């Protein structure tokens, strides 16, 4: 298919409609408003519904209603709005309703500012609402992935009957890159459990209420089983020169892009560096970390938040390898040069001598082979 130069925020909506989404409920917020604007233009033209809700609280509950009625539905917001949606996300997870939520993150806490940050990691990845649930979280780092991962988000939401968050920073939402869409629009008939106002669906009930303690526990265990399955089947990461790397950089979203440039520069300078870019933040690609730990001497986490990704990396490595940390916040972006300096500093600390060059050992970079390009594990 032809490539189109398009903002990430617009690509999300077009991809969603192609994936069968026919309802958008949202509330404007920078830097996510283009998503609502594109939905307002294209939903009615494609037989869908667009409503600007009175608040994010109402918007997520409209998603609850749309999903209950068997319609693929989505919303988009940013930090403060996502906070307001947490109640509804918990209810949807509890009632096992699918939906897709785009979080185009900004700086916080509080009103913070509208510049790109990644401080929503905890509230999105750990499930900021009440109770025993998880949301599946996908983290695109390009406009193409905004489209591809939105499609994937709808599939995952339907497969697991659970809210799925596409978490991108303001950069990925606002920037334009060439993007290719799936060729055919998908039809999404209502699933059999939906309440659609017909004789066949009259016996159906959408509810998250289980008054009986044993029944509630069974329900939670069933949800847990679902998340366990997702952990096995859905964890994704991109490995960029990472197999056999002595230094593994870790970052997602726009940071992943910056780290690709830094990785290339570090390798050009002779360091055996690679990048592990989580594509799913939940389920976290822990197995990828475990695999790379066999050769890596150190993992360097770079994020635009206060050590939130860092916690998951440490959990994934479980003390097997040292984890070092570099971050910028408040809307500041890690600069290539400062990250590169950090990489060199850590290389001196963790790769003393750095002269070993046999395969799989850390140290100076062995000669590049063509098959070392882009080991994308999707």
């Amino acid at each position, binding site marked *: *298919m*032809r490539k*189109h*130069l398009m903002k990430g925020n617009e690509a999300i909506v*077009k991809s969603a*409609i*192609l994936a069968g989404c*026919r*309802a958008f409920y949202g509330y404007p917020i*920078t*830097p996510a408003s283009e998503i609502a604007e594109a939905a307002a233009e*294209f939903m009615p033209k*494609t037989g*869908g*519904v667009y*409503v600007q*809700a*009175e608040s994010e609280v*109402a918007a997520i*509950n*409209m998603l*609850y*209603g*749309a999903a*209950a*009625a068997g*319609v693929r539905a989505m919303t988009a917001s940013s930090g403060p709005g996502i906070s307001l949606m947490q*109640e*509804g996300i918990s*209810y949807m997870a509890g009632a096992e309703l699918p939906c897709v939520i785009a979080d185009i993150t900004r700086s916080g806490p509080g009103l913070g500012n*509208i510049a790109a940050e990644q401080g929503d990691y905890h509230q999105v990845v750990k499930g900021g609402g009440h109770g025993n649930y998880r949301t599946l979280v996908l983290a695109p780092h390009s406009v193409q992935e905004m489209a591809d991962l939105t499609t994937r988000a709808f599939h995952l939401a339907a497969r697991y009957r659970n809210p799925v968050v596409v978490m991108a920073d303001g950069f990925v939402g*606002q*920037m*334009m*890159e*060439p993007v290719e*869409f799936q*060729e*055919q*629009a*998908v*039809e999404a008939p209502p699933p059999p459990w939906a*309440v*659609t*106002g*017909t004789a066949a669906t*009259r016996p*159906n*009930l*959408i*509810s998250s*209420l289980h008054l*009986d303690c044993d029944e509630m526990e069974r329900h939670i265990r069933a949800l847990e089983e679902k998340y366990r399955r997702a952990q096995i089947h859905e964890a994704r990461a991109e490995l960029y020169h990472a197999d056999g790397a002595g230094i593994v950089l870790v970052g997602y979203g*726009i940071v992943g*892009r*910056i780290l690709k*440039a830094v990785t290339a520069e570090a390798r050009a300078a002779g360091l055996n560096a690679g990048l592990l870019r989580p594509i799913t933040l939940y389920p976290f690609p822990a197995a990828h970390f475990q695999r790379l730990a066999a050769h890596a001497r150190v993992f360097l986490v770079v994020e635009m938040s206060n050590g939130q990704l860092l916690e998951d990396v440490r959990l994934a490595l479980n003390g097997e390898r040292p984890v070092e940390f570099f971050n910028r916040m408040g809307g500041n*972006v890690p*600069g*290539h040069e400062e990250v590169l300096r950090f990489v060199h500093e850590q290389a001196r600390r963790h790769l003393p001598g750095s002269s070993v060059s046999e395969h799989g050992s850390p140290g100076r970079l062995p000669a590049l082979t063509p098959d070392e390009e882009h080991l994308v594990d999707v």
Partner: protein
Amino acid sequence: MSNEEFSECTVAFSKAKSFYARYERKDSLQHQTHYCPGCGHGIVHKMLASAIDDLGVQDRTILVGPVGCSVFTYCYFDVGNVQAAHGRAPAVATAIRRSRPEAVVISYQGDGDLAAIGSAEILHAANRGERITVIFVNNAIYSMTGGQAAPTTLLGQKTTTTPEGRCAASEGYPLRICELLSTLEAPVYIERVGLGDNRQVAQAARAIRRAVENQVRGLGFSLIEVLSPCPTIWKMTAVEAQHWVRDVMGKTFPLGVFCDRTKDRAPLPRPDPPPALDEIPRILGVADEAATGPHATSNAGAISAQGRLSAPGRGGPELRMAAGTEIDLQVRIAGFGGQGVLLLGEVLAEAGLGAGLQVSWLPSYGPEMRSGTSNCHVRLASHEIDSPLVASPSVLVAMNEPSLRKFDQSVRPGGWIIYNGDEFPADCARPDVHVLALPFTRLADELGDARASNMIMLGAVLEIAAAPPQASVDAALRRLIQRPKWIELDERALALGRKLLRESFAEGPPAAGLRRWDGVEVSNESRT
């Protein structure tokens, strides 16, 4: 009564068809509801179920249950059931009705649910004129949680959270929902009824039936508030509670019709059928055939990374790239809002895409834009672009002095600054960077419109970069700019920009040791 006489009697009261015969979703006592003796919910449930029966819409009905005593409506109503979060039933109902226009959607809510935590949702659902029916059961107290104050609690009424009685000075006044919502223009029908005596009960049944019927007829938002007894929490007998509804509650909440536009409103026309699935990519503007449309990006003049880069029909000056060179053009464009900063970048990126290059365009956004300055990062490359952030541009386009001062130090050695100004500030001069400083705004004005200054500057960038080819630029302009008058002007502006750059360069390099835009040393001998 003799046996013969008895046998001729028929049972006048039976369970409505829209109730389950047996309440199997209840854990115990499946032949009765969980409501207390004397509670109004049972009566309202029966009225609602009878209305659904009468109107023949049992299969089409979707009941949205609230949080509160009536949280278990799904145990009793044999209709489609959706249980909602506290106060959010109107939002849930909105979405169900919008996506399922054939459904009859009823939101059933108590006073804490609707008038307190859900006050925003009910207000806006009513104001949008959602085609739903709302049954609002008002018993002036939070019953399920044990008797706390509600927004509808009467002045002086004792609750567990107003132990001395509700006081206007600290808790405000009872909230009159019907009066409030009837100030809106969208609702079709709003009535307050009571369960205070048999006459009131009969009127309540009529009102509830009417509110459901309005929806079946395709009319808009209807709400029935029902003043309802709660003997348990009020600590009264059932009879006392019924009298309290009539004699005390009724004074604060007068019964009656507050809004009736049923005669003025026409039923909503049926929505158009959705487009065929095959049509969707075209509607979204992402179909393949769009490539042949009038505004499509043309791939004419597309180049491969190995191909020679030069615009058709032109000889390339020395700055042009040699055959086989990798392209990695990194441009930062900055200026005031309104100078066309973002559009300049977009035309460049779009043209790059049309020429088969990898491209990225990243704007500054938000209040920065509104406070008057704007900038964007553009990359064009013959390989995959790692980071879209341009930290060290090969070309800086500075449309004003503040932008120049902000970014001039970031330009990589051997790079270029295109500056819009009569004179390049002496303190910004760098020996290792080429400068083209001209009053582009005035030049554009002379050309026809000062707003075309961005395209003159783009012309200079294109001439420096020798990519993408002019055909791709022309196609990008036609895709991004709608008015022919502007396209014509912009084409002249681009040509002028190229000419100015060439002429400026012909006068000699600004510094010894000329470097190409991408930083590669160029010997003077190679300049012919």
